[in-house]
Each structure stands twice: as structure tokens, then as C-alpha cells.
């Protein structure tokens, strides 16, 4: 199902209605002999069961915004009717102050510079600043997005974030069994965590760093051993 | 070169005739110079520094503004004629950049910058003569210039240099002594006795360090007395000059009005 690929490898994706994910490029001026689709990243090549979606999975630390991904950002500036938000990408994203649940012209959320927000990328175009929203544009409900108060922000690799979002991943359930915790995972390499005691938050943060494939790469048994030393 | 000179002779005198703990002459000139909002010329013996303060004023570079407090920028210029050996130091000189960064971070926690959001306070330090104790002169002059500009400070910052010759501590070193013996500069805030700046280079035993460190802290209080006197007499001279003008009836009313306004602010 998956194979390790290097940039420039030809991909045997053949389908009428083909969707290419990150790390793949259609070779437009390919002649008859050359492959029509090539990889642009090193990583593992994956495809959906019916072969209609293909993508390359790799690990990196720099976030490239893509529409509909949830991210965690830091407010860096207030500009007129909105905010500029650092989401770890090459450019700051903009967040309109009306893009919150229940926000009206009169009643806008008041975020300070330095606040954390959990938001969704609503627009990511290569020639434009990315745009964020803190609600679902159709229902106008918050859906869990909005300002994150208290807690702590852990930075990790992008792969780690994707792993944490996988419901089958062991880490969060393992920690959750020990003490109650809240977590918001952004696709941009940032995880916000909160628990009752500072020492518990520190434990979560250290576990995430230890499990991160870019750092310690610990497995479940290793984390259990680590947690044993942490006194939580 | 210094080894031929006796730092402290048998009679207990130093090369310029001072005793161990004697400070050099300190003169302070707080008179108005040019368009600066505040300035001070401070002389410690043959070391002389002129500091001019401008601001708080609109920041020239928008990238330097901070939304919650004022930015302090410090520029140090060492006159080419200030040392025996005439040489021009460029602005990129690491030693000068360090000096400027030191002055900036010394005053950042002392100046009440949070009263002036989005503004900038510019401090220009002009070193006119150097004979040891450059950092102490810069710090003392900057304190006085800021006070003179009416910028709110939590306290004075008073700096003194010191050194140890074999086992005897000395205060307020000249260039000759500075080159020869381990030296320390300490800047303290006299109200609380807390130390904002300590620098020491060259090797010194921990116990000796403690001795000179405490001594320099005490000497800072003497410097504080001098600085306080200077500020007092400058203030009273200005107040006296203002009093010489006619008192218009509206003034006192205005003062009361100010008071009310301010009460509302808090």
C-alpha cells in the first residue's frame, strides 16, 4: 500500500477522476515515455483504497496553509476590522473580527495581542495572505473554534500533529486515562493542552516531545515508563 | 606596560595621589544644550561623557513601536580624540554596540516605559574623554539626562568601578589601573540597594570579588548623594526662575482642574 519515494519518482496513478494530494505534481509536458505524475517530496506514498486519491506523507516543521485545516495561531497585531495571526507559515494570516460565533458589527470579540486562537483556514491561495475563521460559515456556530484561554502551547513536528489527530493514536487516550485534560491540535505543528495542575500540563508537553518522530520517537511502552518518572 | 607603574605604593597612595577608597572629582552639568529634552555632562576625573535625551516622541521606524510601552534606543559615539591614541571607532564596533546594549537594558526596567505606549525615547551618548570608568560615567550621565528630561524613573541608577590590586580593593579606577588589575563595574539603585548591572572581566578569586562588589555598592551611595544634589539645585534654580514671572490668576485654577482630571483617570 505504501512505498518510500524520493522527489522525481514516477507515480503509477492511473484513473479518470484522479485527486493529487501534497507532494505530487502532474508533469504537463510529459512525452509518451515519461511518467505523467511525479513526486516532489521525500516520504511514503499513499493512496486511497480505490486509487482515486494519492499523496505523499512526510515530516517537516514548516507549515504550508491548506484550506479547511484547523490551526492554532497567535494574535500579533490588530488591524482595523480584524487581526493578524501568526500560524507558523511564511506569512501572517488574517482573521476578521466578524468571523466568530455571535459576532456582529456592534458586538465583536476583543482579543489582545498575544492571545491564542484555534481557527480554521478558510482561504489559502499561493498569491494571497491566508485567511482564518473561527466559526462554520454556514451554520455560524463556533464548532469548538475561538480563543484558547489558559493552558500551554506545545510545538511539535507536523507529522506529530497528524498522528495526534488520528483517533487510533495511543498518546492522548493514555494520558486521558491518568488525569482529565483538554487538547486542541492544530495542523501547523502546535498543540494546545490544558489540565488542572501545572505538573500535569508539563507531563503532557514532555510526552508529546518524547513521542514526536522528529525528537525522541518513543513508543507506548516508553511513554508509560516516562510517565512513571513524572509523578502525575 | 603598566607593570612598571606602582598601582598602590607603600604609603597607601595610588598613582594619581588618591587613597584606596577615594573617588575622583565628579562634576555634573545639567544645563540646557541645544534642542535636547534633557542632557547631562558628567565628569569623573578625566573621563567625560555627554548624554542627550530626546523624547518620549513619535517612533521614527514603525517596526520599533511597541503597543504597550515606549522603546528606548541608545546610540553611543566615541569621539576619536577621546583617547591618547587617536582612532576612529566605527558604529559597528562590537565594544560600542555592547556598551549601547548595556545602557539600554540597564534603563529599560528603570524607566516607566509603560506610560508612553508606541513612543520612543532616544538616548545619545557622546564620549568626550576616556580615562577609565567609561561605563560608570555613561550610566551616571544617562540617569541624570533622563531625570533632566522629566522622564519618570523608578530610581536613580548609580555606577562605580572598582578593582583589586593583589589583595587591596581600589575604587574608581583610572585607565592605567583598569589595564593592570582585575576590575568590576557595579550599578545600583540607592533606594533599595539592589544591583542592576555587574560586569567583571579578568581573573579574580570569588572571595575578593565579594569584597569589592560590596564596597562598590557602598560607593554608589556616595555618587547618589552627588547626583541628588545636582538634580536638586537644577530643579530649584528652574523653579525659582519660573516663580520670577508673574503669577496669573488662572494658573492655580488650572492646577486644580488638572488634579480633578487625573483623579478621573485612575
Amino acid at each position, binding site marked *: 500500500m505504501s512505498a518510500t519515494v524520493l522527489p522525481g519518482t514516477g507515480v503509477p496513478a492511473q484513473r479518470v477522476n484522479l485527486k493529487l494530494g501534497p507532494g505530487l505534481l502532474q508533469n504537463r509536458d510529459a512525452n509518451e515515455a515519461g511518467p505523467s505524475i511525479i513526486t516532489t517530496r521525500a516520504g511514503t506514498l499513499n493512496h486511497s483504497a480505490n486509487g482515486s486519491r494519492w499523496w505523499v506523507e512526510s515530516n517537516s516543521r514548516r507549515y504550508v496553509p491548506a484550506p479547511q485545516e484547523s490551526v492554532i495561531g497567535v*494574535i500579533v497585531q490588530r488591524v482595523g476590522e480584524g487581526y493578524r495571526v501568526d500560524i507558523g507559515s511564511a506569512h501572517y494570516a488574517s482573521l476578521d473580527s466578524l468571523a466568530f460565533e455571535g459576532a456582529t458589527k456592534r458586538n465583536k470579540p476583543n482579543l489582545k495581542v*498575544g492571545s491564542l486562537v484555534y481557527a480554521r483556514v478558510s482561504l489559502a491561495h499561493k498569491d494571497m495572505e491566508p485567511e482564518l475563521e473561527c466559526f462554520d460559515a454556514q451554520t455560524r456556530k463556533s464548532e469548538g473554534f475561538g480563543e484558547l484561554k489558559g493552558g500551554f502551547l506545545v510545538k511539535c513536528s507536523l507529522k506529530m500533529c497528524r498522528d495526534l489527530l488520528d483517533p487510533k493514536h495511543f498518546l492522548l487516550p493514555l494520558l486521558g486515562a491518568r488525569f482529565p485534560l483538554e487538547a486542541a491540535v492544530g495542523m501547523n505543528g502546535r498543540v494546545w493542552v490544558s489540565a488542572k495542575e501545572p505538573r500535569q500540563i508539563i507531563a503532557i508537553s514532555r510526552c508529546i516531545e518524547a513521542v514526536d518522530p522528529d525528537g525522541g520517537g518513543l513508543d507506548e511502552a516508553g511513554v508509560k515508563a516516562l510517565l512513571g518518572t513524572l509523578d502525575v | 606596560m603598566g607593570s612598571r607603574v606602582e598601582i598602590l605604593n607603600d604609603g597607601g597612595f595610588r598613582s594619581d595621589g588618591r587613597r584606596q577608597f577615594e573617588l575622583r572629582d565628579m562634576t555634573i552639568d545639567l544645563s540646557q544644550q541645544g534642542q535636547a529634552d534633557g542632557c547631562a555632562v558628567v565628569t569623573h576625573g578625566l573621563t567625560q561623557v555627554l548624554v542627550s535625551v530626546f523624547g518620549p516622541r513619535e517612533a521614527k521606524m514603525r517596526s520599533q513601536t511597541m503597543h504597550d510601552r515606549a522603546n528606548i534606543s541608545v546610540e553611543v559615539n566615541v569621539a576619536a580624540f577621546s583617547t591618547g591614541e587617536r582612532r576612529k571607532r566605527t558604529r559597528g564596533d*562590537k565594544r560600542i554596540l555592547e556598551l549601547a546594549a548595556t545602557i*539600554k537594558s540597564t534603563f529599560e526596567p528603570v524607566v516607566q516605559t509603560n506610560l508612553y505606549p508606541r513612543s520612543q525615547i532616544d538616548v545619545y551618548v557622546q564620549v568626550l574623554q576616556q580615562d577609565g570608568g567609561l561605563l560608570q560615567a555613561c550610566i551616571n550621565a544617562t540617569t541624570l539626562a533622563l531625570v533632566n528630561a522629566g522622564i519618570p524613573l523608578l530610581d536613580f541608577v548609580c555606577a562605580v568601578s572598582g578593582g583589586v590590586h593583589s589583595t587591596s580593593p581600589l575604587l574608581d579606577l583610572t585607565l592605567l589601573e583598569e589595564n593592570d588589575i582585575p576590575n568590576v563595574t557595579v550599578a545600583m539603585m540607592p533606594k533599595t540597594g539592589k544591583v*542592576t548591572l*555587574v560586569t567583571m572581566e579578568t581573573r*579574580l578569586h570569588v572571595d575578593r570579588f565579594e569584597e569589592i562588589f560590596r564596597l562598590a555598592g557602598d560607593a554608589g551611595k556616595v555618587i547618589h548623594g552627588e547626583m541628588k544634589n545636582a538634580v536638586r539645585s537644577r530643579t530649584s534654580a528652574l523653579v525659582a526662575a519660573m516663580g520670577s514671572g508673574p503669577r496669573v490668576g488662572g494658573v492655580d485654577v488650572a492646577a486644580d482642574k488638572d488634579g480633578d482630571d487625573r483623579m478621573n483617570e485612575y
Partner: protein
Amino acid sequence: MRPPSPSIPEKEFLVASLKESLRLDGRLPLETRTPILTFGPELGWVECALGKTRVVAEVEGKMVKPTPERPFEGSSRYTRRYRPWRRASTSPVGRASDEEVTITRMLDKVLRRSDAVDKESLCILAGQRVWHLRLTLHFLSDAGNMLDCACLAGIVALKHFRRPDVEVIGDEVTVHEPTERAPIPLAIHHTPFCFTFAFFPDPSIPPVIDPSQLEQRLSAGLLSVALNAQRELCVVQKLGGVPLDPDDVLKIVSVAVQKAKELNNVVDARLREDWEARKVEVT
């Protein structure tokens, strides 16, 4: 685009946990990260890691003609390569940031001005030939406290380095290849180590040694102490920042005295271990 300052929750959490004497990486306030020293195949190549902060130091020696003013002394030069973390600095391109200036000046004071290396022993033939040492420091990654890491890498590299043996007969200088005669270590007067402490504006927060990147950015002042295991201070540097009680400063100094002794033992042990391993290779 300058990097944004840490967010409010990060700041509040750090302050709250430090008040309980908890640090994010599980250390005690006065506990350093254990340095990991990795020696390269060549003598004088050391990689020093404090957590994720990494600095590589390498020493090269070559023979040059001494300067006319100091015919009996060898010379040394330090080069620093900051490139990888320049990105994170806040200053405009081309001008050194404050942190860069501090580190540069501090390295100069700790390694050169404290006379760690005996310069006269680098003389081969007075006025004719002396050794010139070049120490290059490569800053690979910054996870806080680059200064201590760089100082440690520098001094260990100098201790690790060995120069080829030289024989002088009359005016004739013969350099012996390492295969002929065992190379000679440098004459080191003393081994200064640097310790950095971070202070916070809230007086109820204890000072922390060896601050991490977040601690360093949120701190309100740093105090660096460089000293050797013989209780001799080389540099004490607190450039502004939050004012401290004189007794607190002296307490910090005595903590550093203790740490220097421990670190000296660790470094000596590592150097000996490495040297033993090399001996086996030769025979």
C-alpha cells in the same frame, strides 16, 4: 518578519509553574541540562549539546611568523558562524543583534582575555615561528542558552586539541607527523566554564540556571558567570535587567562555584575516556 513574542497563555503558564519551582523540561530551578560532548575523528573537533542547543567547535593550528610587538607569543583567533539562527534574530539584515553582540563579546572575554591558553608556550622560535590557533564555533541550533554551550564547546575543543610535536635545531624547525611522535596538548592555564542564570520580574520566582529558549525570552534579565574549578571568577556579567539584591548575586556566584566543580569533573572524565579510546586505535 520578526518572530512574534510568546503568546499570553505560554507566558502565564511558565510564570505559574515556575512559582511552584517546576520547569517545562522537568528540571529543578538550579539544575543544568547535562552537556553531551561528542568528539570527532580529528583532535580539536567537539560537538556540544545542551538539550537541543548544539554548537560545534573546531581548533586548527598552523605555524606563522609572530607579530613584531609580541615575538614570544603565539596568537589565536576566534571565528563564529551564526548563520542558522540569524533567521530568528530581530535585527535588520547586516547588523548584529544584541544577543549576537553579547555572545561574541562574552566568548572573547571567557576564552581569550582570561588567558586560558598559555600563549608563550605556543612560541617555537622567537620572532620567527609561532603557533597560530584558530577556533571556529558553528552554532547549529538554538533551544536556549547558546552562550554557555558555545563557551563549553570552545574550551573543551582547546583541551581536546593536540598540536604536532616540533623540534628546533639551531634555526631549523622540524615538524613531526603524529605517526612519528605523539602530538602535544596545549598548555592550558585554567578551564573557565560559563553559567547563565535567568531572572523574572516577579520576585517570588527563583532564578533558573541554564534557561531554555522560552525561559530566556520571557526572562527579565540574565546574569552570566564564568569561572574555573579553582574558584577564580573570569567574567561576571549582568547587563541591566531586573535589579537584584547584592546578596542574591553573591548566592548565584556560589552556586556557580559548585556547578563549575561538577562540570570540570564531567569534562575531564569525558576527555580521558575519549583519549583512552584513541590509544587503543593507535596500537
